[in-house]
C-alpha cells in the first residue's frame, strides 16, 4: 500500500481509531500493529508476507538462543553469525542473485567461452527488503553486543520488524530505540499527534507537489539528453537531486509523522542536507538512519577512524562500496558509493572533516561568504554524484558527462527551468525552517501565531497536493527508495 494512495487515506484513520478506542492496552495495540502492518505490506503481494515473517521469526529465535547461551561467547557468536548469514542470504537471493550471476557469466564467457546465463532466475524484488532486513540484523547484533536484552514477546518483535509507517523505506530503526517503545504503554499525546500530522502534511507536499512533478521532467529527459545544452543537463541533475530528496525525505516525514500518531518516536532521517558545508556533513544529514547503521555495524567494527589515515581510507571505501551495493544490484551504484568514498577520503586526508555544532548561518538569515562557498562546492559535488546514481549504466554516465561538457553550454529548457525554480521555492521554506524538525513547525511569531493563518496554509497545501496528485495520476508515482 502506498502512502500516496486512496487505500492508505482510508486505512490510516481506521487503524488509528481501532488503536486508541478498541485495541486498548499495550499488548492488544501491538497485535493490531502487526495485523495492520501485514495488511499494509501484503497489499503489494501477499507472498512477501512469508518472507518478512520468516526473517522476523529467525531473528526473534536467535535472540532467545543468544540469551539461553549467555556466558558461552563462542555459541553466541555462532548463533548471531547464523542469523546474519540467513538474513543476508535471503537479501542476496532476492536482490543480488541475478547481478552476481550476470557478472559471473560475463567473466566465464571472457575467460572460458562458457555461458552461464541459464542460471539467471526470474526473481521479484520484495518491496523494502533491504530496510527490514537491516532492522532485523540490528536486533541480533545489539542483543549479541548486550546493548539490549532479548525480547520474549513474539508479537512485539513482529511489530518492531513490520511497523507499517517505516516498513518499506525506513527510517531503519535500531532495536535499542524502537523495541523498548513497543514494551511500554503508549498514551495519546495531543501536541505530538498534531505535530505528527503537520510533518505528514509536509511529507505529502514534498512528494506530491515537488518530487512527482520533477519526476515527470527527469524521466522525460534522462536517457534522451543528447540535444540538451550543458546548462540544461546540469540543471537536470539538480532537478533529480530535488526529486530524490523530496521523494525520500517526504516518505520519511510521512513515516515519522504517522508513527507519532500512534505514540512512537522514530529517528530523524533527513536534517536539511542541501544546506551542508561539506560532504561529511551532507552524509550526517542525508539518510541518517542508513549512514549511522553502516557506521555502527560496519565502519566501527572495521576499526573506524582509529589507526592511521590509510586504514581510515580503506574502511571508508569498504563501507561506501557496500552502501552503493545496498542501493541496488548494479555497478553504477557501486561506482556512486566509491565516488562518495573518494570525496570523504579527500576531506579526511585534508583534515576538513569538521563536525559542526550548529546549522549553517546559525542565528542569521543568510550565510556568510565562506559558508556560501562551502555549500556551493558541496552542492556541485553532490550534483555530479546524482548523475552516477540516476543513470542506468556507467556508459550512460559517460554519455551524460560528455554531452554536458561538449554540447553548447547555454540553452534554455523551459520545463527543466520551471521545476528547478519551483523546487527552489520549496528549498527557501526549508532554509527558513532549517533549525526545526520539519518545515511546518511554525515559529510563534505573527502572522503564524494566528490559528487562521496556519489553517489557511494547511488547507492550501492539502489542496495543492491534491491537484498535483490528480494531474499526475497516470504516472508511476511509487517512492524511489522502494526499489532498494
Amino acid at each position, binding site marked *: 500500500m502506498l502512502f500516496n494512495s486512496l487505500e492508505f487515506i482510508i486505512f490510516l484513520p481506521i487503524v488509528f481509531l481501532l488503536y486508541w478506542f478498541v485495541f486498548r492496552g499495550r499488548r492488544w495495540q501491538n497485535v493490531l500493529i502487526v495485523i495492520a502492518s501485514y495488511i499494509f505490506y501484503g497489499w503489494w503481494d501477499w507472498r512477501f508476507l512469508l518472507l518478512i515473517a520468516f526473517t522476523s521469526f529467525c531473528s526473534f529465535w536467535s535472540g532467545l538462543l543468544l540469551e539461553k547461551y549467555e556466558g558461552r561467547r563462542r555459541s553466541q557468536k555462532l548463533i548471531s553469525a547464523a542469523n546474519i548469514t540467513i538474513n543476508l542470504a535471503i537479501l542476496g537471493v532476492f536482490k543480488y542473485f541475478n547481478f552476481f550471476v550476470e557478472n559471473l557469466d560475463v567473466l566465464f564467457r571472457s575467460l572460458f567461452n562458457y555461458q552461464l546465463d541459464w542460471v539467471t532466475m526470474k526473481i521479484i524484488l520484495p518491496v523494502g527488503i533491504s530496510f527490514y532486513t537491516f532492522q532485523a540484523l540490528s536486533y541480533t547484533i545489539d542483543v549479541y553486543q548486550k546493548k539490549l536484552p532479548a525480547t520474549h514477546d513474539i508479537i512485539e518483535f513482529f511489530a518492531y520488524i513490520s511497523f507499517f509507517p517505516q516498513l518499506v523505506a525506513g527510517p531503519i530503526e535500531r532495536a535499542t530505540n524502537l523495541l523498548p517503545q513497543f514494551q511500554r504503554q503508549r498514551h495519546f499525546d495531543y501536541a505530538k499527534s498534531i505535530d505528527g500530522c503537520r510533518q505528514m502534511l509536509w511529507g505529502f507536499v514534498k512528494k506530491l507537489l515537488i518530487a512527482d512533478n520533477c519526476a515527470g521532467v527527469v524521466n522525460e529527459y534522462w536517457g534522451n539528453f543528447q540535444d540538451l545544452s550543458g546548462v540544461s543537463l546540469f540543471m537536470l541533475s539538480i532537478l533529480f537531486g530535488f526529486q530524490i530528496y523530496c521523494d525520500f525525505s517526504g516518505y520519511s516525514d510521512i513515516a515519522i509523522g504517522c508513527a507519532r500518531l500512534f505514540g512512537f518516536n522514530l529517528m530523524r532521517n533527513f536534517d536539511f542536507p542541501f544546506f551542508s558545508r561539506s560532504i561529511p556533513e551532507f552524509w550526517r544529514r542525508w539518510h541518517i538512519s542508513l549512514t549511522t547503521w553502516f557506521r555502527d555495524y560496519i565502519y566501527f567494527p572495521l576499526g573506524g577512524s582509529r589507526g592511521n589515515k590509510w586504514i581510515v581510507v580503506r574502511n571508508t571505501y569498504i563501507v561506501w562500496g557496500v552502501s552503493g551495493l545496498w542501493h541496488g544490484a548494479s555497478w553504477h551504484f557501486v561506482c556512486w558509493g566509491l565516488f562518495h568514498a573518494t570525496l570523504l577520503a579527500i576531506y579526511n586526508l585534508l583534515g576538513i572533516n569538521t563536525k559542526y555544532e550548529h546549522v549553517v548561518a546559525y542565528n542569521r538569515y543568510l550565510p556568510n561568504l565562506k559558508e556560501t562557498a562551502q555549500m556551493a562546492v558541496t552542492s556541485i559535488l553532490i550534483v555530479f554524484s546524482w548523475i552516477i546514481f540516476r543513470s542506468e549504466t556507467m556508459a550512460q554516465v559517460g554519455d551524460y558527462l560528455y554531452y554536458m561538457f561538449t554540447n553548447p553550454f547555454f540553452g534554455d529548457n523551459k520545463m527543466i527551468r520551471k521545476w528547478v525554480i519551483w523546487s527552489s521555492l520549496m528549498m527557501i521554506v526549508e532554509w527558513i525552517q532549517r533549525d526545526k524538525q520539519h518545515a511546518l513547525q511554525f515559529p510563534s511569531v505573527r502572522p503564524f501565531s494566528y490559528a487562521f493563518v496556519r489553517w489557511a496554509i494547511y*488547507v492550501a497545501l492539502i489542496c495543492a497536493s491534491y491537484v498535483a496528485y490528480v494531474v499526475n495520476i497516470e504516472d508511476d508515482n511509487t517512492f524511489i527508495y522502494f526499489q532498494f
Partner: protein
Amino acid sequence: MKRFLIKVLLLVIIAFTIILIINVFMLLSKDRFSCYSHERNVALAYERLVALRDTNKIVIIAGSNAGFGINSRLIKQAFHMPVVNTATHGGIGVRMQFEMYNDLLREGDVVIFCPEYGAGEARLYGESTLVRILSTHLPQAYSKFSLAQWVHALKYIGIHYREAHKHRKSKEFDGPYSAKAINEYGDIEWKRAHQDTISCYNISSLIDKELVAYYKYVHATTKKRGIRLLFLPPTLLGSNYHKDAAQIEEWAVYLKQNGIPLQAEPSKYAFHDSLYYDTPYHMTSVGADLRTEVMINDMARLLKGL
C-alpha cells in the same frame, strides 16, 4: 483526543469542500484542442437530434469506427430517412455513447449500434477522452452519469485538466481529425488515403459480463420504446480480424447466448488492409463507402417492410 479528532475532522471538511470546488473547476475547464477537433461532433450530433426530435430517423451510435467508416449520405439515399451519425470516439465508452442521446430517440427510429471490440471498464465507462469531450462540448451530459460512472470518471478529472492546460494555446487546424472534416450527418468527410503505419490491436478476450449486461439494457430499453435496434459488428482491419478471429467468434457466441445476437457476421465487416486509414478501425474514404454498402444490405435485410 476529542480536541484532536474535532480539529482533524474540521480540517478534513474544509479541505474536502475546497477540493470539491477545485474538482468542479477542473471538470468544467474546456480543452481548446478538442474544440477544433472532430470531437465537436458530439455537440453537433446532439443539436441535429434535437432538431429531428419529432421526425423518424436513423441514428448511428458507435465509436470512431463509424465516424471514420460510414458514408451516411448513401444510407439516407437508400432508406429516405434523415441520418445522424453520433459516432465520435471509442474512449467515450459504450454507456455514454448511448445515454447522451437516449432521450432524443423516439418510437420508429432506427438505431445502428456498432461499438468497437473490447472489454473492461474503459470500454463501458470510457477513458479520459470522455471527460475531455463532455467538459468541452456537452457538459449537460454529466447529468446522465450513474454513480459507477462518476467513480470511474473521477480519476480522469486531473488528467483532463492537465491536458486542457497543455492545449490552452491550441489553434484551429485542418485534416481528418479536425472539426472541419465533419459533414452534415456527422461523418468524417475528409479525403483519407491508406497509411502504411497501422499496427494491429491485441484483442485478448472480449467476454465482459458488465458490458453485456449494458448491451442487454440497451436492447430492452429500445425495444420497449418501439425503437428498432440493429446491433452490427464494427469494422476491423482485415489482418487484425484474422489474427483475433477466435476471440471475436467466441464473443459473438457469448452475445447470442445472452439473447443479444449480432445481426451480421463480423467477418463481413473486416476489409482488406489497404482500405484502412491510420488505425485498425479508421477507414479510408473508399473503405467507408464499401463498408456502408455492406451495411445497407444488412439493414435492408433486417428492416424489411420499413
